[in-house]
């Protein structure tokens, strides 16, 4: 409105735009690296259904509620659902992807330490959504005797 100069606002808007460009570029770069699936990743089929998770390894072994993996190996999850939408989540490894009937979504991870982690459902799926939980068990690469 005419009588006062507006340059501080333009400087400020410039700073905000620069910040957003920086955030966007960093995010773009990080996501690009994260999404690059290693060629030797072993496939694990993950199926969500009301209200539990089941897993199928490449060698055909099946597990329900618990998932055993070996430390230092890369795994690729192929996630789907048998009924309604769910979301497969291992929060400690920032693994999060929706399980949607009729679709297969893929995400990969490589556990670096032996240990146990929670698996949970992060998309509302009804009555027992709050307790649609499982365990990820990361084991030594060679079973010790």
């Amino acid at each position, binding site marked *: 409105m005419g009588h006062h100069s507006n340059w501080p*606002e333009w400087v400020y808007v410039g700073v905000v735009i620069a910040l957003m460009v920086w*955030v966007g570029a960093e995010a773009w770069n990080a*996501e690009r690296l994260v999404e690059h699936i290693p060629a030797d990743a072993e496939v694990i089929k993950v199926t969500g259904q009301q209200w539990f998770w089941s897993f199928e390894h490449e060698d055909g072994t099946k597990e329900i509620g618990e998932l055993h993996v070996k430390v230092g190996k890369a795994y690729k999850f192929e996630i789907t659902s048998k009924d309604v939408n769910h979301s497969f989540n291992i*929060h400690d490894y920032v693994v999060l*992807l929706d399980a949607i009937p009729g679709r297969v979504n893929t995400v990969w991870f490589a556990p670096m330490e032996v240990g146990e982690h929670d698996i949970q459902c992060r998309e*509302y799926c*009804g009555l027992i959504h709050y307790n649609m939980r499982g365990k990820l068990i990361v084991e030594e690469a060679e079973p010790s005797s």
Partner: protein
Amino acid sequence: MVLELQKPRPIWQIMFSTHHTDVGLLYLITSLAFLFLGGTLALAIRAELFLPGSQIIADSMTFNRMFTVHGTTLIFLFILPFASAVGNYLVPIMVRYKDMAYPKLNAIAFWMIPPAGALIWLGFADFTWYATPPYSIISAPGPAADMWIFGLKILGISSVLGAINFIVTILKCKHPDMSIGQVPLLAWSFLTSSLIVLVAIPTFAAALLMLLTDRLGVSGFFNPAMGGDPIAYAHLFWFTFHPEVYVLVIPAIGMMYEIIPRFSRKPIFSHSSGIFAFVLLSMVSFSSWAHHMYATGMSFTEKTVFMIGTLAAVPASAMHVFNFIATMWNGRIKFATPMMWAVGGIALFFSAGAGGVVNAAMPLDFQTHDSYWVVGHFHLFVMGTIAFGSIGFFYYIFPYVTGRMYNERMGQVHFVLSFIGTVLVFFTQHVLGLYGMPRRVYDYPPIPEWITMNQIASVGAMIIGVSMVIFLINMIYSSGKGKLADTDDPFNLGGKYYYPFEAKNPHH
């Protein structure tokens, strides 16, 4: 001036009136009633989550129904009708016209709300405020789900009718002496948010019908068992509801544009930059809807496009914050109740936006998505920004609606408690999300950090609850027994900027 309660009239005279201040009063009372109803559900939800295990809510189905109706109520039956109340009172006055452009249509748009509210509350659906298929098709119990669908359908029509009315009133009925650039920013906020409504709502209106026919089994648009695609619903839903969040927030910003200059006793820093930011926001709000869908398995390219679209909206929001601060700069600020709410709301608006940027950055969203972080994020907007702006504005127009003053001390206590409570609940929920707690859960495992943070959040919610009781008492007492307001300068601001309405309505 407006002075509704000073000259008592039989209630039916107000109910059957089409005059804009009467319809405004109806909107106002309805929206506040739903604020208290929806808020009560929130307190029950927070009480349940105070500890792991079952506390006060018997089973998870009841809990799920409660958070669904809580969200639906506060968005559609509090925030939107409250904005319509303010728009009804002030837009015609601000553009110097005798009423809304279509008074009967205006009354009809209001009267669609009570039946829709009744459908939502009597049904008490459980499928969350996004009613995502296939859960909402194959799993959600009827008739609750169907009643919710019809309720939302009616509310959508009401919104569109209201939007048409605001647009025509502002563009076609404004006084010929007034250029569009001179229209006050509050009225501009209604113009831009109404334009968003017209473009955004039809998509969800179509999706709701498709959802209904899917539920009836005669179609399978979103049902994978019949060859449909649930992701299609997510796109239709968010194409409406991302822009819709700006429909919620823009009028609240408009209300702050009234309060901030008045109580700073200075003109707004830049009227034109306010208009520019509103117009820009209303356009870029359509470029980012799928930032709610990063985790549905979108390609890298799609995610990148929607991230850029989201970040592009940030400068426009940031311009409003600048405008507010620059207006207060060197002002003779009077921290009366309305000003406290507005300034508190701006601080929370800023924090909320910063959290939004984190969500928008793709790799970070996989930390925050569908966790309590997101609950904290959007509540800093809906509670911290929109409810704060609205409540502040309610105090601001209280003398004009009732002819009386509220109790200033109680208004300030209300603000201080609400502000502390809001920070405790919603900042804590951000952290809780980073610890991995999913949203929409009736119970949670006894992880020590989760328990502590849930308790902080629950205590914060109770503090807000107490503050709202003080609010209710103040409102009821003061509208009947408060001291008579000086309607020319109720806030004792003196000088040139004291009255809230640019012109008086010839009707009164």
